[in-house]
């Protein structure tokens, strides 16, 4: 199939993009890497009058490093991160996650902001960044606002973004050097979206012990204080299976086989954090 006829604009600054996005006489859609939007256009699942391409906006590609965090522009691509063009404040977690998304051709174009706004439950960033405690920086007609990532994704393909708003960047806290993380996804073949994701982050200096179960069919399931969940010694056997299953059931992930796979992903993420 082919997309419907649409106009195309490629503004050079954020204000112009936001102004275009606020037009109410036409249906406007933002396009970044086009890796998710492209297929939706082709299948006519979305039929915009105007596409606003935000990849020429320099400030959306900026990376700013601060003492306790890093802010990555929304149009930074998965490949930029994979290739180490973004300073590492996460003990290598960002690079590792980026390199496991899709395959290189997709990573060359797909952006971190686009991935979050697309809000596919099986995508990598939404789960990984949830575990890292990131926040999303949003620009609209009003002042910029920041939303902790857990509050950003509202559901399948749904976010907290109001019409006319753009994600300009993602702020990710700096991990202490003693932090340990593990990320594990299961998928049928290389480059596929995840069937199950487990993420685990332990950063005692910052009093963080967080676990996330992702690719759930909805928002990632967050165990903000995962100490009880992972149990003493963090050994695979110590995981509180009931707690994990209850968490999944509460989020509507009830199928026992799906639960088993997600549990395994989480267990393996914890094992990876422990160096095995």
């Amino acid at each position, binding site marked *: 199939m082919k997309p419907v006829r649409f106009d195309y604009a490629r503004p050079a600054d954020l204000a112009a993009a936001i102004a275009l996005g606020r037009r109410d006489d036409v249906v406007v859609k933002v396009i970044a890497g086009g890796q998710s939007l492209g297929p939706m256009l082709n299948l006519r699942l979305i039929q915009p009058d105007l596409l606003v391409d935000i990849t020429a906006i320099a400030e959306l590609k900026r990376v700013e490093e601060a003492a306790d965090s890093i802010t990555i522009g929304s149009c930074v691509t998965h490949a930029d991160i994979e290739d180490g063009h973004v300073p590492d404040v996460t003990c290598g977690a960002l690079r590792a996650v980026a390199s496991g998304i899709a395959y290189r051709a997709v990573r060359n174009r797909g952006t971190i902001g686009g991935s979050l706004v697309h809000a596919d439950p099986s995508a990598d960033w939404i789960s990984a960044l949830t575990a890292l405690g990131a926040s999303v920086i949003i620009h609209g007609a009003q002042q910029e606002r920041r939303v902790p990532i857990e509050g950003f994704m509202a559901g399948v393909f749904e976010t907290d973004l109001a019409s006319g708003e753009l994600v300009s960047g993602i702020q990710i806290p700096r991990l202490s050097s003693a932090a340990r993380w593990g990320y594990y996804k299961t998928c049928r073949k290389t480059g596929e979206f995840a069937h199950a994701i487990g993420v685990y982050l332990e950063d005692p200096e910052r009093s963080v012990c967080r676990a996330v179960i992702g690719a759930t069919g909805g928002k990632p399931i967050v165990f903000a204080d995962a100490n009880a969940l992972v149990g003493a010694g963090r050994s695979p056997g110590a995981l509180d299976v009931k707690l994990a299953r209850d968490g999944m059931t509460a989020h509507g992930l009830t199928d026992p086989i799906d639960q088993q796979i997600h549990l*395994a992903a989480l267990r393996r993420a914890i094992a990876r954090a422990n160096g095995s």
Partner: protein
Amino acid sequence: MTEQGIGARLLRKEDDRLLRGRGQFVADLRFAGLKDVAFVRSPLAHARIRGIVVPLTHKDAVFTAGDMKGVKPIRAVSGLRGFKASDQPSLATEKVRFVGELVAMCIAPTRAEAEDIASTVTLDLDELPAVYDMLAARNSTSALLHDDWGDNVFLETFVDTNIDKALDAPIKVTREISTARQCMAPLEGRGAVAIWDKRLEQLTLHSACQMPHIVRTGLAGCLGLDEGQVRVIAPDVGGGFGYKAILLAEEVCLGWLAMQCGHPVRWIEDRREHLTAGANCREHHYRITGYADRDGRLLGIDCEATVDSGAYSSYPFSACLEAAQVASILPGPYDFPAYRCRTYSIATNKCPILPYRGVARTGVCFALELVLDAIAREVGIEPHEVRAKILVKPEQMPFDNITKKHFDSGDYPESLRRAVGSIDIPAVRVRQKNGETDGRLIGVGLATYCEQAAHGTSVYYGWGIPMVPGFEQATARLTPDGGLELRVGVHSHGQGLETTLAQVAHEILGIDVSKIKVVHGDTAMTPYSTGTWGSRCMVMAGGAVSAACKEIAKRAAKIGAQLLQTDVSRVTVRGGEVVGSQGSITLGEIARTWYLKPQNLPSDVDPGGLEATIGYKPVRDTGTFSYATHAALVAVDPEIGDIEILDYVIVEDGGKLVNPMIVDGQIYGGFAQGVGTALYEEMPFNSAGQPLASTFADYLLPGPTEVPAPRVDHMETLAPYTEFGVKGIGEGGAIAPPAAIANAVNDALRPLGAELLNSPITPRRVLEAIARAGRSAT
């Protein structure tokens, strides 16, 4: 063997253009005034059409069945007793019978605009219950696809050879086995450009097809044209696998439209159309029992096989070829005394299933080989021991099996022995005892098959389908500069025939392959042929090219002898020359003499000149039987259900290999598709008959990281009945992998008591099988 002749690992001539992106596929063709077509397709699986509403603004750009007066439906009958024919209208008339069935056709300067118009057409449909489950479709309470049939059965067949002698066997293993509906997914989908030439009063259809002559015959029939008024050109075609053997309703529509509107029209299939409404295949179900003695010797097979044929019988192979073949090939490469098989070809509200590489063989191999392994487990012997007892032995060759298939040659047990040795089953058993450090379970699996290929008149006459292959013809023509043109009616779309047929000609005439041009894919330029299917091209077209080149050699020898002033009995043709005792003369010089200096020709020269069309058939046309044993070593992750292929061995016998490199390529490609069948590919439908995989995000194909390099070992037993001893090998690679891999998975899961019987073996199916086994153990 010469450097370029039979047996040479010559690089493929066609790759120079294909790898540089210079191929010319249907979608690359440009014509003045060309307009694009988009179809309005049925959104429902089964419904009565109450009305089709076209907005007035578009009424000149939209066509429905009512407009196509006089166009006949596609009808592919079978001569098998009891076959019920279906009429597939090009555009739906009273009913729609599958999601994606064509209802209306829209034209516009671009495809996007044609889709805009298509989206304005509204269908008033009265939904009927969808027939989506081929087993339930046999019930008398089922809704009916074709109202006048009385049931949903295209064809039922039955054979019984002494099954009562096996029924009391001490070992009896019964399984329900199935292969999922799949899609063929060649790189290029279908596509067509149709042009009506007013001067010639001729319709030219440029089509991404693999059987242009058959498409021409079928198309002329539907449109009511003389065959001379139809020319089909298949340019570069990006893979066929059987999908491109079929005359499509889309092609009939385009042909009609081009005649109506006076300008070229084009339809290029997109992947969504391809997956949901086009290239479906492979959906088989088996209820199968193996009878054996306590030593594991197979005494009989009893089977009821059902094939989901979809809504219509497709031209030319018909809706029953798949199931009917199941009955004749299920016994595989084995010798056992009792056999019964009942088959059903069932009509459902899904798009027709079409012959896919390996056709029925992949399903049959899956069913039989899984049962053999189940017998081995039951009696407690190694799977290869069960096979070794019953594989037809070389001293039995040629061998007529229980369904009267004539196995021509080979050493089947040797392929098994080599595969067992190469994958090293004893070492696997030790490794299994020790366990894996990562907690995975490993297993080894085998599958042996033999594949009838290039079977001809005597076999196909029996199916009684619209096309029965006879003699295959080739034209060889020396050009005045000493080059050679070969014209063949088969089509090459990945098989490398532009190279291998040139190698055959080189073998006979010694002309450098760079000067040999293979012309194919145009009904106006090539002899009639049923085309490329059934692993037949090298046997049939290769034989024909050889025969035609021999005729050219004979005629050239005569002219050459005259020019060398010697007797024809004293010359030979080799190395591109006619060689006598006193000297030689090039074929180029001989060609120049024939075409441009005829005054020098002998007075009794053959007036046919240096162009010859010769028909060829093997000495026996019951088919060549290539065969192979595949052995897979896999690791199964019992927690998440993942499967990794650790090692894969293929020991195959394709007779004389014309180009071993190309044969390897065919095997690798077939293997990749077999891995897809085994582990990934599935086109699910819901109970409303809706296809649930409409993009490659939902329909998973294995990629480079999922397909390990198989280790291929060739045996080369010459076929007794064919030119050079070649056997058909095109499809084999795709036949055994699902069986070998499933057997390996079952071997791995044996400690857990789990067994998988349905392809593809997805993580979910693995975990469900483990869970089931766990429940039944407690």
